[in-house]
């Protein structure tokens, strides 16, 4: 219980939860199925300040890009938020590739190995929804069948790949 209180104090010290006039809570994730590698190649474009907030919530302390433990915390945030399920309901494992920081945007790269086909896959992206009620997550998927766009808002369930 004590630990939870510490988290609350920290969060109120960070950026406001309410929408600023020109702040939009949007993330964009691109998932390409690489047939040759039998993997999903996943690229997430996240606002760097939103990601730092999520990392602070994950670890209980403020961390910024480049500090020890930041990458591991980002992977934990991503693994919790982005879920891809096989046809039988088992989640695929997301492994770390890396991240790039571009001033206000952070690009996060993760990979799901051993995905020979996208048939029957379902997915859900809830990143930052716990922080911002207005959060919208766009997911662009591309495989042999073509390109499709999915969008996730609060309360949305899994959608077919």
């Amino acid at each position: 219980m004590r630990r939870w209180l510490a988290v609350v104090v920290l969060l109120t010290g960070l950026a406001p939860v309410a929408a600023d006039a020109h702040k939009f809570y949007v993330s964009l994730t691109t998932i390409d199925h690489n047939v040759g590698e039998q993997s999903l190649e996943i690229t997430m474009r996240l606002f760097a300040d939103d990601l730092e907030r999520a990392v602070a919530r994950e670890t209980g302390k403020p961390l910024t890009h480049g500090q020890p433990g930041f990458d591991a915390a980002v992977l934990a945030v991503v693994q919790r938020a982005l879920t891809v399920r096989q046809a039988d309901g088992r989640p695929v494992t997301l492994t770390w590739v890396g991240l790039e920081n571009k001033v206000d945007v952070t690009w996060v790269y993760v990979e799901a190995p051993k995905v020979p086909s996208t048939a029957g896959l379902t997915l859900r992206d809830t990143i930052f929804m716990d922080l911002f009620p207005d959060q919208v997550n766009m997911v662009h998927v591309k495989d042999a069948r073509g390109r499709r766009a999915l969008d996730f808002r609060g309360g949305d369930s899994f959608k077919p790949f």
Partner: protein
Amino acid sequence: MTYYNQSPDPLTYLWLQLDQNLFRKDSDTALTAPAPSLERPTFETLDTLVNRDFDGGFQIASVTNATGKPLPHTIVKTMMRIDLPAPLAPGKSVVFGVAWSYNINDAKRLGGRSGYEFFPKDGNYIYEIAQWFPRLAAYNDVSGWQHKQFLGSGEFTLEFGNYKVRITAPNDHVVGATGVLQNPQAVLSPTQLQRLEQAKTASAPVLVVTPAEAKAAEAGKPTGTKTWVFHAENVRDFAFASSRKFIWDAQGHRSGAQPVLAMSYYPNEGNPLWAQYSTAAIIHTLNLYSRYSFDYPYPIAISVNGPVGGMEYPMICFNGPRPEPDGTYSARTKYALISVVIHEVGHNYFPMIVNTDERQWTWMDEGINSFLQFLAEQEWEDNYPSRRGEPKNMVEYMVAPGHDPIMTNSESVKELGNNAYGKPATALNILRETVMGRELFDFAFREYSRRWKFKRPMPADFFRTMEDASAIDLDWFWHGWFYTTDHTDLSLDDVRHYTLDTKNPETEKTLQRQQQTAAPTTLSAERYRDTPKLVEQNPALADFYNRFDPLAVTPADREEYQKVLGTLTDKEKALIGANKNFYVMRFSNVGGLVMPIILKLDYVDGSSEELRIPAEIWRRDASRVSKLVITDKVLAQVTLDPKLETADTDLSNNFFPRKPVMTRFQLFKQQQQTTPNPMQQLERKPGTDAPRPQGPGL
């Protein structure tokens, strides 16, 4: 208020906007908010959901005529109708008064475009006050009253007017507002007056209230009140900010004939960033926007730091970014501050002066303003990290199925940031750089700004003026970029190489022999090559055909050629002898958006040239076109959109011959697997995560 009916219509009632009613518990905004995610909500989210205790919205005490008699009025959500005793004829005016009050929202907790911020450390507040009085709705030629309800996204449009405002505040507060301070002697100390005077001709910001003076005020208590009087002319709104925490700096500037005082108000928490960048960014914005539109017509331009992230009002705007409490700041915070000051000060031009209607068309001010913001950022420093403007940054949004056309009402847009800011800013940048060229675009854009200054343009007025002043038919451009969700994906499908048949047997038969030699040998032919052949072992079986070389030039061939030459004129002989290469290029439009075809032609001799084909090439068939290119040199490679200027979403079909194009993911992964370059090694600080080829081991 005195309301002048400048319209040609008699008005039987007036509509006023009650923006604060957005904060009522029964507002449409509150009732129609989508359900948030309830997975792991923060306590902050829970607090705003559960403790909906803020009693917001206007209390209208009375609406009266000039003699104090009540006027009938009806409140409809965020609008109020005042019924006039007699129709107000064109050219006539009516005087009325409204007595009102409202509770100020905690902008840090509840959001909003104005409100207060509390500083627990010293117990003080910053107030940023806007949309704070019943404001006249606009009455226009196109739709009559603009009284679409305020739901939170579509900001507003208003009428121009003259304001006289008296603000009474605790006597240790500093107040900044739309308009010129009328009673400086009554509210400023002699030292402050002298500093303000000095600022008018200074070449750097002069502190009117110093950080130390602001700190001292934070620790003190007011001993009474002061009334600040402001006048503002020809503005569509009036906003102000007030706090004892304010540092205040000012620097004189001149926009054409208009002297301007650029000023910033910020707490000590805003430094070091604010002292260095805010007023400098105001002046940079005035310089740049005036160059592309018109001279800034107001005497004041203010940037205030407080709880609001970024919001514009005439002569004054609110900007959020601040350094960390320890005084350090990230590059992100620095550029966020410079960018937001440029953006919000820039809004003085669009829509505070060119009075577009953001309640209906967000892109007309946010998109146009984001475009000019990009130009201002690019002139701030080399490689400024602009978020919006570069075509390649808009590719992911535009390629996604299911987004909204730009021409969508402000409240019904799915991704307002990309839709109303990013995409129109990108479209205008492409229009300027790729379609019209800088000179024609800049001339037409200045004409649009000049023509609609202090007037109320609709989208068609913008489209029409850009064509009117340039003689460039842009119907295809407005259609594709503003009314559809098509994206750019042009494909260079193939390139065929032709040369002239010269009829000269020496040339043509040599060429045929080269082609034969270059043709692949089949597997069987290759395997039989060294097998002993019967005819070689038994020459009696050989005849004429075994010795005949069909590609050898015969005297008959030469005779025939001389005969053909004899029938040709000298001009025809020269044409054949010019030795030109003919390339037929075929293109298809995969994404649907019509765009110019920009080609880079690389020749086998190592030289290259650019070929720019206007979008009119698509006018007969918007899905498939061909183009003939005639050259002296032989092509090695053709590249479509080599400088990434058209937001082409799929580069893999932009090369002939085809080249593999890696995705961002593949590029990153490949780079990770090679050793870090010297810059990466230098920029890595001791004790930080090194780039790793593998994961962090989770």
